[in-house]
Each structure stands twice: as C-alpha cells, then as structure tokens.
C-alpha cells in the first residue's frame, strides 16, 4: 500500500491536492488538502461593516454573488431590517443567474470533458462523446460559452457586472428595475430557456421537472428528443459506466440545505437536513453548526460555533494537512450542493436517486441539471412579479455593537456568514463555504469529510497517476477551493 499525491485538480479553481491510499485496485483512504490560504477573515477584522460588501465577493469570482448575498443578509440581520419584496426578487434573480450559470459551466467545461479523455478511447460511445465534449475543441464548448455569456447579461442589467457587484446591499438591491427592463429581463431568461430546451434537455423544462424516479429518467432519456441532447447523452454514459455506483458516501446520508430564494421571507427551496437512511427531514438551525480545527493549519484544536470561531494560521501544527476547517452539523459530516437542495426541497427524482444509490457521481450531476430546469421557470415568475416604481431597497442602520447571520445556498451548497460588530467595526467575521463542508478534512474524532469518504472504493487503474474515475468523483462535487479556505 502506498500513498499517491495528486494535483492540481484544475477546472473551476485548481488549488486542490488529494492523497490516496489504494489497495486491491481501489482507494482505501483519502486525504483532501486545500493548499492555498489568503486570510479574508483576518483582512475583514477592523473594517467598517459595509466594507464587507466590497471584500467578500472577492473571496470567490465563481460564486461572488452568493458571497454578496450572504454578507448583505448578515448585515440586514444585524440591523434587524427587512428587504422589500422587489429587492428579494431582484436578489433572487442575481443569485439564480449565478447558480445556474455555474451548473451550466460545470457540466460543459469542467465535468464532461473528462469523458473525452484518451483513457476511454475505443469504447463504443467514445467518438461522438469526444466530438461533443472534448476540452477546448468540442462542439459543446463552442456553443455553451456564448450561451453562458448571453445568460450572464442578466447580471449586466441587474448587477452592473459579474463577477464582483455591489448592487446587493444590506436592505435590498441598489438597482431598481424599470418597466421596459422587466420585459428585457424576461426575454433574456426566455432565450436561455430556449437554448436549454434545444441543446441540454431536448425537451420542455417542465417535462424534466415532471420526472419522478430514476426509471422515469431512464425511459425519458431514450426518447426521441432527449436522446440526442446533452442530458440524454450523459444518462446513457451513466448507464454505460455505472456512474450511480461511483463516488458514494454511505456513511454520509445527511443532505443539507440552508434554503434559498426567499419571497416575503419564505424560501422557494426549503431549509433542512434530509436524513436519507431514516427518510426524514430534520430542521437546520445555525446553532447546530461548529467548525473543528483539529486537522487544519489553524491555531487551536477545538470546535467552535462560527460566532465564536477564529482564524489564525499555524503551519507547523501536528496532524494538520489542509487550510480547510472541518464544519460539522450536530457533530456529523453532511453533504451539500444542488442534489441536497433538491432532496431537501422534496423533488421526487432527487429523493428517489438518493434512496436508491445515495449521493454519487450520477445523482450529483443530475441534481444540478434538475435544478436548472426547476429554477428557470421560477426566474420567469420573479421577473413577472417585479413592480417597477415600488422600492427595491430599504435604508438600514447598523447597531454599533451586534451580531448578524447570513445563510444562503450558493451553487455548490450551503454558505454561511457570521458577523460580530463591536464599536462600529467588524470584530469577527467567519465564513463557511460549501466546499468547506464537502471537502472537509478529518475532525477531532478522525471522521473524514464527505469527499474523503466518497473517494473510498473508487477503482484506480495501476500505472495511472491521475485515475480518471477519481477525477469524476472529485469533479462531481465541483471543487471550488478559493471559497473553501478564503
């Protein structure tokens, strides 16, 4: 038995290193390391609270709007203020645009190109899949990039630019939408819908949302339209490569969502933790969360709630192997991401996939595409419901001493910001990003994080330094390491 160190795992953001131990042709243990640290939580200390809105989006250029939304929510919470319903809808539109663009980019640029690798040459399905999805040269890249850029024009209108907007403020959106802009927004969303229905799904979004089980999905995917579209192609690949058996983490049957897209305070996607083994939805409250430092290069060894947490690097700490802390919910490892959101919010296909084979490479990717199909119609509804002339922003006044919590769902899962203000300045700011949950190192009890567990059992071909199936498992979680360790 030997340990192999693998990295960089490029695509979305490459600072990820994985150490594997293998025995009998499969992974027997994994350690996930985030090898970069920037110290945003330290940089924020002492700043004016609203300055967080400039700094935190720049934690991550991939999910910068999610970071803005979480920071604005924490400030709004600290002020005890309410966002006007127009502001909620405008912010939902910005957050949904980012999240869906992220899922879209993940599928076309970061995940599918691995099936066009030489390792698969000679399989019966290889030639058409390679022609479609090969990195840089595939026809899908050429079609998907402009579709993505067009879709992100919603950000040009609502947010000025993407990434790194300041439109999302405590108290709502700083950009009111006029009547004609509301129509233009709707047309932009409808244009994206048409692209998706033509290329990704080969069917109406509503038909995808109506799928209730894996059996439904399999028979739909071989139908006339869907078979030739990209989701249909992926489902056929899942079948050929048994991707539903790859990257499971049976000891992590907990799927978490902070809930997303509130309108009048009620999230369109529910909040909770789905316990798959017990088939039960449990409440998710902030007080059940801690971050454990025992294997992170951070001073201190215990676990603390983020309002009491600290971030002080200690590179020489024994037993540490990552800059990533280990967040735990009720002391347990949980998974988060699009699949978790769909499971928690009760979508029958997501619940069926998880009941039958847990979180795995197939279900995590299907979870993202299902989310695209579900959220685009919601975006149409939010846009139609905007009321030009009514306020998008309410003034807030922050206390000179106080606390605030902002909990949202970024593309990759649950994102929380915890803010403590003392004497009008940021006293403490702690962030737990989605990848921190999924790519967590071991905790004080030695329990590995979700990806560390999901990698165990993955087949590794001898003589290959970077086994392609390991890449499928890792990329099915969509690593974004800059968020993780901020």
């Amino acid at each position: 038995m030997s340990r192999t160190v693998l990295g960089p795992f490029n695509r979305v953001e490459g600072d990820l290193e994985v150490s594997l131990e293998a025995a009998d042709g499969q992974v027997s243990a994994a350690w996930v390391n985030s090898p970069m640290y920037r110290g945003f939580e330290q940089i924020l200390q002492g700043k004016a609270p609203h300055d967080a809105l400039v700094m935190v989006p720049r934690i991550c250029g991939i999910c910068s709007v999610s970071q803005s939304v979480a920071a604005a929510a924490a400030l709004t919470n600290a002020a005890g203020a309410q966002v006007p319903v127009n502001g909620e809808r405008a912010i939902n539109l910005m957050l949904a645009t980012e999240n869906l663009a992220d899922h879209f980019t993940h599928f076309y640029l970061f995940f599918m190109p691995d099936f066009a690798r030489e390792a698969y040459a000679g399989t019966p399905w290889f030639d058409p899949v390679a022609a479609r999805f090969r990195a840089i040269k595939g026809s899908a890249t050429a079609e998907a990039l402009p579709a993505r850029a067009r879709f992100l024009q919603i950000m040009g209108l609502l947010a000025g630019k993407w990434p790194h907007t300041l439109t999302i403020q405590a108290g709502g959106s700083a950009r009111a939408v006029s009547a004609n802009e509301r129509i233009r927004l709707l047309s932009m969303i409808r244009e994206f819908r048409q692209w998706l229905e033509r290329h990704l799904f080969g069917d109406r979004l509503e038909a995808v949302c109506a799928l209730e089980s894996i059996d439904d999905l399999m028979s739909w995917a071989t139908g006339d339209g869907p078979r030739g579209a990209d989701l249909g192609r992926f489902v056929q690949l899942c079948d050929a490569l048994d991707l539903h058996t790859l990257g499971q983490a049976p000891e992590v049957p907990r799927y978490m969502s902070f809930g997303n897209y509130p309108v009048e305070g009620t999230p369109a996607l529910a909040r909770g933790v789905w316990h798959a083994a017990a088939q039960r939805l449990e409440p998710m409250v902030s007080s059940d969360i801690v971050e454990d430092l025992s294997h992170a290069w951070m001073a201190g060894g215990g676990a603390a709630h983020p309002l009491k947490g600290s971030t002080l690097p200690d590179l020489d700490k024994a037993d540490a192997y990552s800059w990533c802390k280990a967040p735990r919910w009720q002391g347990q490892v949980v998974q988060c991401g699009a699949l978790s959101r769909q499971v928690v919010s009760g979508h029958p296909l997501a619940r069926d996939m998880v009941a039958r084979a847990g979180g795995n490479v197939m279900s995590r990717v299907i979870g993202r595409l299902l989310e695209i199909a579900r959220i685009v119609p919601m975006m149409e509804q939010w846009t139609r419901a905007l009321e030009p002339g009514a306020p998008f922003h309410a003034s807030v006044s922050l206390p000179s001493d106080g606390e605030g919590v902002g909990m949202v769902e970024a593309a990759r899962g649950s994102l929380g910001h915890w803010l403590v203000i003392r004497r009008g300045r940021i006293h403490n700011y702690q962030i737990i990003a989605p990848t921190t949950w999924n790519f967590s190192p071991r905790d004080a009890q030695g329990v590995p994080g979700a990806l560390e567990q999901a990698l165990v059992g993955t087949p590794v071909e001898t003589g290959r330094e970077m086994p392609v199936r390991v890449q499928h498992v890792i990329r099915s979680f969509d690593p974004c390491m800059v968020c993780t360790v901020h």
Partner: protein
Amino acid sequence: MNVLWLQSGGCGGCTMSMLCAETPDLLGMLADADIHFLWHPSLSEESGSEAVSVLDRCVSGELPLDVLCVEGSLLRGPNGTGRFHMLAGTGTPMIEWVSKLAARARHTMAVGTCAAFGGVTSGGLNPTDACGLQYEGATPGGLLGADFRSGSGLPVINVAGCPTHPDWVIESLMALSMGEMGAEALDEVGRPRFYADHLVHHGCSRNEFYEFKASAEKPSDMGCMMEHMGCKGTQAHADCNLRPWNGNGSCTSGGYPCISCTEPGFEEPGHPFAETPKVSGIPIGLPTDMPKAWFVALAALSKSATPKRVRVNATSDHTVIAPANRKTGLK
C-alpha cells in the same frame, strides 16, 4: 503564440470574466489570432501530473513560452517561504513556479489587480504578505522586482481590474500576438493605455447628475455618487462606461459607486468604500486634472442652477419627473 495561464492567490474571477467575452465564438477567435493555451486551468483537459509536465517543459525551455499570464496575487508568506500557496501536487510554492516561468517567458502579463498590484488579497494587515508580480500597491518591486524585464524587454503588462474586463485581456493578448504592444502602449504603472487612458467617468450614465452636482444619498438613488457615496469614477483609469460589461452594464449603471478597482492600492482607500471623505463639506478626492478652487466654484454654480427634475430624480430610484416636452423653436 503559446500562452500559459496560472492562478495564484486570487479568486478565479478574472477567468470567469474572460469567459463572458461578448463574442459568438471566444475560442475560435483566439485560435484565429494564433493564441494557443499551453494550459489554462478552466479550459484545458490536463490535470495533475499532465498539467505539471506542461509547466516543467516550459521551465526547461522545451516548450516555447510566449506569454505567462498570472491571475491572483503572489503569496510570499509566511516569512518569505511561499507556503501559503503551494502548487497542488508539486510540493513547491507557487511563487517559485512563477519566478522560474517568468524568467523563460517572452512576455509576462498580470491578469487582474491582484496579480498587478496585490489587490484585495493584500488588504488589511496583509496576512499572507501578498503582492503583485512587479508592484506592491503603487510601489515597484513585487515578486519579480522593479528591474524585471521579460524576454521581449517589456516590464510586466498589468491588465488591472477587479475583475478585468474580458476585452482588456483578449485585446492585450491579440496585440502581443500581432507584435503591436511596445513600451509606449503601457501607462506609468504598466497598464495597457487603450483602456487606462480613459476615466470611468467618461460615458457614465449619471453624467447629467454630475453636471449639476445632484447627488445620490443612499443606495438605489439615481444621482451622482461622487459627493456622498464614495464614487471614484472621475479619478479611476478605465473605460468601464464606454465599454459595456455583460451586455450593457457598468458599476455606476448597476447602482453603485466606482471603487477604482484598476488602481494600485484600491483595496485600502482609507475610508469606508461607499462614503466620500470630505473636509469642510468638500470631497477630498476631486476629479483628476481639476484645481480644487475651480471645482468648488463650479459646483456651487451648478448646484444653484439644478433643474427640479434633476434634483428630485437624484434621490429617487426611478424617474419621478420626466424631461419636459417643449418646442425647441428650431426648424
């Protein structure tokens, strides 16, 4: 032209921005301009040892490296070791990789303000000792040193912006590919002049409010954001309001002030970002090239002449009073 793109201590946002390029076929356009990515983290197939092998071959000279693009600041800490950022799978700090590759590259390009000047990663007490490739804030130096010149003889090309506009990067690469970017094309802090010889103020959709000093007082107001909201559009070098972002966006049209993200040291303005520091009610940061006395005199005059329409709309989130329809008398 062979381009190698590395991500150091940044957020990946400049790559994400580049992928928003408003062209029907970004990769086709780059290929047509003879721009070939030896490796780009978001676009290339190679991972792990395959990717490291590309880097090794560039360092050895086996692969000719025309442009080294670095996104993100260079993390020198702790204590000069660079261990805050090890390139995954190599056991080697990123600053060592960048130094070795820059020594081989014909051109070196900082993509974004982090790689150019340090950016937000160097904010606060700068816990990771972050800097730019050839600057630390406005001070020459950085990782490679003030005297560094690439194989071409040029200093580091600083395509600053947080994030950069996709066109700033693509057009800079194209100019290099065509051999049309010399020392005269860069401004005094190494930024390409084609976008840095403008001010963000140029083309701002709030210009009429600026003319009359009809000012926004809170987020979502339509007025000029210079007087109260910290807007630095009259001082920041970039063509953001002339060259649309994501369709037809810009920061000021998105409802928020310019924070001068193309400038060295923007991350520590010395005041809250969205507040204008003033002395005796007069903003400290006045428009570039404008004597203070002139500004004060003109502002007093224009404020006294502000039409009611402009004054009312400035503190509203939508047009409350539309421009009047009057016969101009022109034939």
